[in-house]
């Protein structure tokens, strides 16, 4: 039994964790939250220099050609540090879309730039309130031009291109397009969100020039495939964040005195934190399962991804809200850092399909698996 990261992967974790401790304290998160910048460009440059954006991109496209296990390690540490970066959009979503469905020419054009961090990609599926489905899509496209509005698009205000999902009369009801966002027929507007440390935009396409990614009428299957893969990476970020929330709660409980003793001595607080630990541990073990399935391209990836995703959503939400509760009134202030994991936990839990969506995916995948 070797259900564990390798020594090299653990070294990478130490390196990533040390780097982020030095360069991505909560002060950095707060700077983006309070300021006008959409992300921390200085940190992004360093992350790119370390090769993190190139992790799983094959060497023939100027990537590092490492496995998804390495990317999971990086995701966990980025989540732990609450990094204000467009990493998930560019790496887990846009890069994955090209790796999964890109033609040779498309890969040659985009992947080296994604690897070097000279461009940032994003994914545009949602079109406003509620779950997006092929039936609800109003964005339309013909052979080379695309029109419609997408919101919210994570990192849409700063990305160079988007992977856009548009309605299609044939196949599964959707097609996928690569759209350069730096063209005159594209306009963007930054949105106010529950987590200003991660930027979001509304993007309007008015006959924007677009290039088909994958086959026409296979867009929805592609989106689900990308989401299954990204769900594992998101889950690692979520578990990293949940562990941060537990650490914050523990540190505060040990130092805060009430009725003449540390509140960490009260069982009401101990059981709350023990509960966080239990949920985080189960979620992390399911992330291992997801990491294994993603890195080996296992047929049970849909089950493993949904399992990791549901567990991570629940663990992070629980840890982040109970962290505020443990801090009492101070946890509710702008001055304290408790707001960061609370904001981020909800953001991460809704931006590639929410808890009920993934619970349903899980049961459907189990039914399909058992029927097969």
């Amino acid at each position: 039994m070797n259900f564990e990261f390798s020594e090299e992967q653990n070294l990478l974790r130490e390196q990533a964790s040390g780097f982020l401790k030095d360069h991505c304290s909560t002060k950095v998160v707060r700077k983006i939250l309070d300021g006008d910048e959409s992300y921390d460009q200085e940190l992004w440059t360093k992350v790119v220099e370390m090769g993190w954006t190139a992790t799983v991109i094959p060497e023939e496209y100027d990537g590092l050609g490492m496995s998804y296990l390495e990317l999971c390690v990086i995701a966990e540490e980025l989540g732990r540090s609450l990094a204000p970066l467009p990493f998930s959009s560019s790496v887990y979503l846009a890069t994955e879309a090209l790796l999964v469905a890109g033609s040779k020419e498309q890969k040659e054009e985009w992947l080296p730039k994604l690897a070097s961090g000279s461009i940032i990609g994003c994914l545009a599926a949602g079109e406003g309130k509620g779950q997006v489905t092929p039936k609800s899509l109003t964005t339309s496209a013909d052979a080379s031009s695309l029109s419609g509005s997408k919101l919210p698009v994570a990192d849409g205000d700063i990305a160079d291109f988007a992977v856009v999902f548009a309605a299609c009369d044939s196949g599964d009801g959707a097609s996928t397009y690569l759209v350069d966002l730096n063209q005159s027929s594209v306009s963007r507007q930054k949105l106010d969100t529950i987590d200003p440390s991660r930027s979001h935009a509304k993007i309007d396409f008015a006959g924007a020039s677009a290039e088909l990614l994958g086959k026409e009428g296979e867009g929805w299957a592609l989106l689900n495939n990308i989401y299954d893969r990204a769900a594992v990476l998101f889950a690692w970020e979520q578990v990293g964040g949940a562990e941060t929330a537990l650490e914050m709660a523990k540190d505060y409980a040990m130092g805060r005195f009430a009725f003449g003793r540390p509140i960490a001595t009260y069982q009401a607080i101990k059981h709350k934190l023990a509960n966080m630990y239990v949920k985080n541990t189960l979620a992390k073990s399911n992330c291992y399962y997801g990491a294994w399935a993603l890195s080996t391209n296992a047929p049970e990836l849909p089950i493993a991804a949904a399992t990791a995703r549901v567990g991570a959503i629940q663990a992070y939400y629980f840890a982040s809200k109970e962290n505020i509760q443990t801090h009492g009134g101070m946890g509710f202030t702008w001055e304290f850092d408790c707001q960061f994991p609370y904001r981020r936990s909800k953001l991460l839990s809704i931006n590639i399909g929410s808890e009920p969506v993934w619970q349903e995916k899980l049961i459907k995948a189990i039914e399909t698996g058992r029927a097969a």
Partner: protein
Amino acid sequence: MDFEDTAEEAAFRKEARDWLAANVPTKEEKEGLDFLAAAKLWQKRKYDAGWAALRWPKEHGGRGATAIEAVIFGQEESKYQMVELGVFAIGHGMCAPTMMAWATEEQNKRFIPKLASGEEIWCQMFSEPAGGSDLAALRTRGEKDGDEWIINGQKIWTSGAHYADWGVIVLRTDPSAPKHQGLTYFFLDMKSPGIEIKPIKQISGGANFNEIYFTDVRVSDSQRLGEVGQGWQVALTTLMNERAAIGSGGGGVNFKSVFKLAQNINIDDEPAISDKTVRRKLADWYVTESGLKYTGYRSLSALSRGEIPGPENSIGKLVGAPKQQDMASFALDLLESSGAIWDPELSAEAGLFQATYMAAPGGRIAGGTDEIMANIVAERVLGMPQDIRVDKGIPFSEIPTANS
């Protein structure tokens, strides 16, 4: 990252599997044997072939195997679903490690091989009516009389006391000392005069536990483990092994059984599995069950590398026991009024859901209540401080025991 055995592990697994296939007692061999006799037959056979007590040193009748080898043998053996295996769990898992840590070499030579071979069965007598979660509050007295001690009092929740040959016991030998300091640890012959054992009937209908009354029972001072007043430290050896022995708990209701039920039973004339609420609940249980499974795999990986598993190991019972209860309760809801029927002929899965529903409260209490397990996670894993103890430093005899 993979789920495969190393080459050595695979070779060991094959050896174990082959030996089990050739040696597990057949139905004919067990014909006419009671539970206990069947358990002893199998244990002796393992012992004679060097497959008993795998982790123990060879000179004590064990195999001197590694932790992962013991796990592999356990995995292969559990495929035969021999329920009688539980007979030796306490003696092997808790009493023997305590003896090996605290008894004399001579005593270990006398007792450990017979534990390994199953010829002698042991039980553990810690809990008392006034000492459950607060274990050190036990009151059964041990009074020195020459080279012997005289025991008077009552123990409770003792598994297997009615068939045990020997037992370990913690006694209050100095009521004037503070709670943890007045205790002393012994082992004794369960057939000693003055011991009376009564089974306790549980709400599940079973009787797995006993209460034991001691009236002027004599035990030799040579059967004391550790110093007089050192009983708590010795007891901790036993308890640490208890926690190591508690896994995620197999058997009972699981995702598979509730999923199957939901496919075969209707809500509003449609299969329950098509109901969104049912699907969401099932998804959550799948996620929890999967989390426990892969947490176990992480621990096994540590063992496989020759390391001690991390603290993630400690959550199995805390998660597993309430989950069993909730899933059984939900299955009974799906069964509607028929869920009340507990009859192997008439009930779904031969009464599995009813049996689990009625057994589950015990799982949340035995071996540390949910609340105590949560304290353990908070204190031992997260490093949070203990609660303030109002009985600290006070002579045991002056600690309040009831409202007056």
